């Protein structure tokens, strides 16, 4: 996190150079030997390294809108985080010319024990806005999120919808030219969605770059220029959005996708409690 390093003379906006990112999973020690049993009894864990992404090399040019496709366990989110720099690769390197705004689960970063205004300051600050900048924009952010009336109320148990809108509005207020977005465009009613669209289209027309992960094919078809398909931690193919969607549709991981979606719903329920 980044201390985000920028490489101003880079030709592409983001460059992945044989990037790998792994997690070390802890599992109970297995094996029946005496030694292993003792270690298991002592609560020791086994550490297995698992590569979420490996040997990923690609270029993303300025002004492109790229759909990152793949099953949910294909490392899509990690790809976005690596691009934005909120994850540091274990192998290879990621170079970027401009900062990317990581719109990844922003809703989770909201703190319910703070007021709406304070949340705007925190998230805005995390995304690289200066306090002065936030101060100037706080009004328009609140208006867009439709929370102007309760700006100084505590977030508390605000509905997921409201929080989602707030997160979205803050991200859109940042003066940036590139966004890495995970699932955020699923908010609100028809009117509100149309409004979000307009915002994004306007940004794109102004030359902004988008990296998108979404489970809404229609949206991707309409918005993105091309697609990168991830599979088993590597880039399967870089292709058009239509073809990419078709390829993903045939991948065996499709069931898991629906399962993940249910998981997400569960999360929302938790939030409501």
């Amino acid at each position: 996190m980044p201390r985000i390093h920028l490489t101003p003379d880079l030709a592409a906006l983001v460059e992945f150079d044989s990037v790998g990112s792994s997690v070390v999973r802890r599992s109970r020690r297995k094996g029946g030997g005496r030694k292993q049993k003792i270690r298991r009894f002592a609560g020791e864990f086994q550490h297995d390294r698992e590569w979420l992404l490996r040997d990923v090399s690609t270029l993303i040019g300025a002004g492109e809108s790229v759909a990152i496709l793949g099953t949910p366990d294909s490392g899509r989110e990690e790809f976005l985080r690596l691009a934005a720099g909120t994850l540091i690769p274990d192998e290879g390197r990621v170079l970027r010319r401009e900062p990317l705004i990581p719109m990844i689960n922003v809703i989770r970063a909201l703190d319910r024990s703070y007021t709406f205004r304070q949340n705007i300051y925190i998230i805005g600050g995390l995304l690289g806005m200066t306090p002065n900048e936030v101060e100037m924009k706080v009004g328009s952010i609140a208006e867009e999120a439709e929370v102007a009336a309760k700006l100084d109320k505590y977030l508390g148990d605000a509905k997921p919808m409201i929080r989602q809108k707030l997160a979205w509005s803050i991200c859109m207020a940042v003066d940036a030219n590139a966004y890495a977005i995970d699932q955020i465009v699923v908010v609100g009613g028809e009117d509100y969605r149309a409004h979000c669209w307009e915002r994004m289209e306007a940004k794109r027309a102004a030359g902004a770059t988008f990296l998108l992960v979404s489970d809404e094919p229609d949206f991707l078809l309409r918005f993105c220029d091309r697609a990168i398909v991830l599979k088993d931690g590597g880039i399967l193919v870089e292709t058009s959005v239509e073809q990419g969607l078709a390829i993903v549709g045939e991948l065996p991981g499709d069931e898991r996708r629906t399962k993940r979606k249910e998981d997400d719903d569960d999360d929302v329920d938790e939030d409501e409690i």
Partner: protein
Amino acid sequence: MLVLRDLQKQYTKFRLGYLWTLLEPLGMSIVLWLVFSVLLSRQLGEQPYALFITVAILPWWWFTKGISQSTRAFKKNTNALAISLLPTELWVLRVILVSMAEFLLSLPIILLAMAFTRYVPGPLIVFYPVAIILQFLLMYGIGLLVASGVAVIPDLARIVRIVMRALFYLSPVLYSVSKIPHHIQSYASLNPMVGILGLYRIGFWPAEIERTINYVISFLVALVLIGVGLFVFRRLEPRILKED
């Protein structure tokens, strides 16, 4: 600048509890004073003993709080870490600064103790701010070390708690360095808090100045720890970001 914002936010939580920032260490000092001075009537430190304890216990409180909270600096904020474009160290810095603010706000207790004991510090009180800065540096180093260490060894948080408790008795909070037997005094000096607590006190009891070497050692240890902390932190930063 964001740290300031953060602090301010943190304080909206604390505002209700500002009195607590005063009462907690105050109660602690009173209890310790009663036990060691009135009940045991031991000559552990300089007179007046009530003030002697208070002067050291406030910084100690800050030290313990800051360090034990920095074990959670990243864990508590994984969601924010996932989107933050700011340097990761800020989360540690923030924890230390928040506890420092609490410490500064609790300083009136010393005035209270001074009034109670009718004891006025001499000109060497100018070292008080120096001690604060020194302690801040020391804590930042340890905080970085501990905060990133937790990402690798989850048990570290518990270890830290135990070590802090042990350090409380190993550091001259309740007694003065001169009361330590001579042959172990030089080992005691290796504890950086020895020098820092001494600096807090020399304004009140100039006699504490005798062992200049302590101050040099604390300063060096603080510098080394910051170096080590930053180094370890850099090495572990990828792991820290992966926590979730």
